[in-house]
C-alpha cells in the first residue's frame, strides 16, 4: 500500500473529530433542522455506525443525489460528515521527475540588448570616424593595357597569392585552400572530445593556432614584404606596395 503522508492523515483525523463533535451536538440538542444534512441521511449514518459499514458501501451514490431540503444547494455528504474521500495519493516523484539543473539566467532586456546596442554604437562610431579620416582608394580608371607592378589580390587572398610563388597554381590556388576549408568544416566531426576546457584541448587549440598563424604570416608577407615583380622586399627599405 502507498504510504499516506502525515499531514493528510492529520487533516482526515481533524475532519473526523469535527464531524463527530457536530453530530454529537446535534443529537444532544435534538434540533436536526439546524444541520444542513438531511435528517434521513443522518439517521442512516447513525445506523451505519451502529450496525457496521455495509449500508454505506451498498449505496455510495445515494448521498450524492440527495435532494436539497429548502431549495438550497444539494449537499454531498458521506457518513461522518465527510464531503470527499481520499482515493489515492500520487507522490510527486513518480510523475514529475525533474532531471535538469536550474540555469542561472538573466533577462535579455536590458542585460543583453543594452550591451548589443552599445557595441553597435561603438562600431558605428569607429567606422564613421575612420571613414572621415581615411579615404577609400580610387586609382586611375581600369586599363587593360597597363598592368601595375606589383598586382596584388585583396589582402585576404594574399596568403594564396604568396603560396603561388612556392607551388604549382593548382596546388596553391585550389588544393590547399580547398583542403583547408573542408578541414575547417569537418573539425567538429573529427574532434570527438567533449570537454571545452582549454587544458583538455591542447592538441586542437595548437592545430588551430598553427593553421591561423600559417595564413596570417603568409598574408603579412604577401601584403608588406612583396614589391615589384612580387619579389621579396623590406617595407622599411623600399616602401609599402599595398592598397586596401
Amino acid at each position, binding site marked *: 500500500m502507498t504510504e499516506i503522508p502525515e499531514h493528510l492523515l492529520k487533516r482526515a483525523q481533524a475532519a473526523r473529530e469535527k464531524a463527530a463533535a457536530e453530530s454529537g451536538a446535534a443529537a444532544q440538542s435534538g434540533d436536526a433542522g439546524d444541520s444542513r444534512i438531511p435528517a434521513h441521511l443522518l439517521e442512516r449514518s447513525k445506523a451505519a455506525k451502529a450496525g457496521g459499514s455495509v449500508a454505506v458501501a451498498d449505496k455510495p451514490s445515494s448521498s450524492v443525489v440527495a435532494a436539497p431540503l429548502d431549495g438550497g444547494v444539494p449537499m454531498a455528504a458521506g457518513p461522518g460528515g465527510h464531503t470527499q474521500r481520499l482515493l489515492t495519493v500520487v507522490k510527486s516523484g513518480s510523475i514529475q521527475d525533474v532531471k535538469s539543473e536550474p540555469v542561472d539566467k538573466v533577462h535579455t532586456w536590458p*542585460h543583453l540588448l543594452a550591451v548589443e546596442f552599445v557595441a553597435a554604437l561603438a562600431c558605428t562610431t569607429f567606422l564613421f570616424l575612420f571613414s572621415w579620416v581615411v579615404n577609400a582608394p580610387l586609382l586611375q580608371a581600369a586599363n587593360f593595357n597597363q598592368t601595375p607592378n606589383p598586382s596584388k589580390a585583396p589582402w585576404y587572398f594574399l596568403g594564396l597569392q604568396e603560396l603561388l610563388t612556392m607551388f604549382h597554381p593548382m596546388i596553391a590556388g585550389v588544393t590547399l585552400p580547398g583542403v583547408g576549408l573542408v578541414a575547417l568544416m569537418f573539425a567538429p566531426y573529427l574532434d570527438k572530445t567533449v570537454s571545452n576546457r582549454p587544458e583538455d584541448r591542447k592538441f586542437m587549440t595548437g592545430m588551430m593556432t598553427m593553421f591561423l598563424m600559417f595564413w596570417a604570416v603568409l598574408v603579412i608577407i604577401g601584403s608588406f614584404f612583396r614589391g615589384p615583380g612580387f619579389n621579396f622586399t623590406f617595407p622599411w627599405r623600399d616602401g609599402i606596395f599595398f592598397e586596401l
Partner: protein
Amino acid sequence: MASTIEEKPRLTLKERAAKLGESLQGSQAWNSIFRPGSIFRKGYTDSPRNRSYVIMNSVLYHLHPVKVKRHAVKVSYTLCLGGLSFFLFILLTVTGIFLMFFYRPTAANAWQDIQSLQTSVTFGLMVRNMHRWGAHLMVLSVFLHMARVFYHGAYKAPREFNWVVGVILLTLTLLLSFTGYLLPWDQLALWAVAVGTNMMGYSPVIGSQVRFVLLGGVEIGAETLLRWYVLHVLLFPFVTVIFLAIHFWRVRKDGGISGPL
C-alpha cells in the same frame, strides 16, 4: 451669451497632447501595429514581467529568447564578434543601397560614377568610405568570430552543424567582399580581381568553365563587371541572409551560446 461660450474650460496644451495620445493609442490602427502586451500599448515600468514582454511582444523574439544564460552576456566571453558581424552586414546593406543610386555597372560609366559620387554627391565620399572600410572590418570580425568560437570549443555537439553553416558564411563574406572589389573599375580593382580569378582557372575538371561563367568571357571585361555587380548586390546577399537565418535559428535551438569554460 458670453457665459455659455465660456462654459467649458479651455484645455491646456499638455491636456490636448495627452488627449491626442490617448485617442491615438486607442485607435484601431495603433492596436493593429502593436501586439497586446506590447510596451507601446500598455506602457513600461520596470518589472520582470515587462522585461519579458519587451522581447516577447516584439520582432526581437525571432532573435533572442526572453532570458539568456548569465555568462552569455559577458562581453569578455563573446567579444560581441558575431553580433558585430551581423551589424556590419546591415550597415553594409544600408550604405550599399545608397551607393546603388549613383552607380552604373558598365565599363564606360562605373569609374566615372564613383568619381562623381565622391566629388559631387552629398556625403557620397563618406558613405563610400564607410562601405569600403566596413567590408574589410566585416571580413576581420567574421574571421575573429570563427577563431573565438573555435578556441571556446563551441563547435562541439550539439553545435557541429552550426559551425559548418558558419564556415559557409565566412566563405560568403569573402565572396561578397571580393565581388565588391571589382566594382570601382579602377586599376586596383581590375588587377586584384585578375590575380584572384587566374587562380580559379586552375580548379580541376571544371576550373575553366567556372571561370568562363563568372567572368562572362575568357578574360575580365565589361561582361564581368555586370555579372559581379549582380552577384554582389543580389545573389550573395540573398544567399547570405538565408544562411544567417539558419545560423541564428540554430544558435537558439542548440541551447543558446556555448557554456562557460
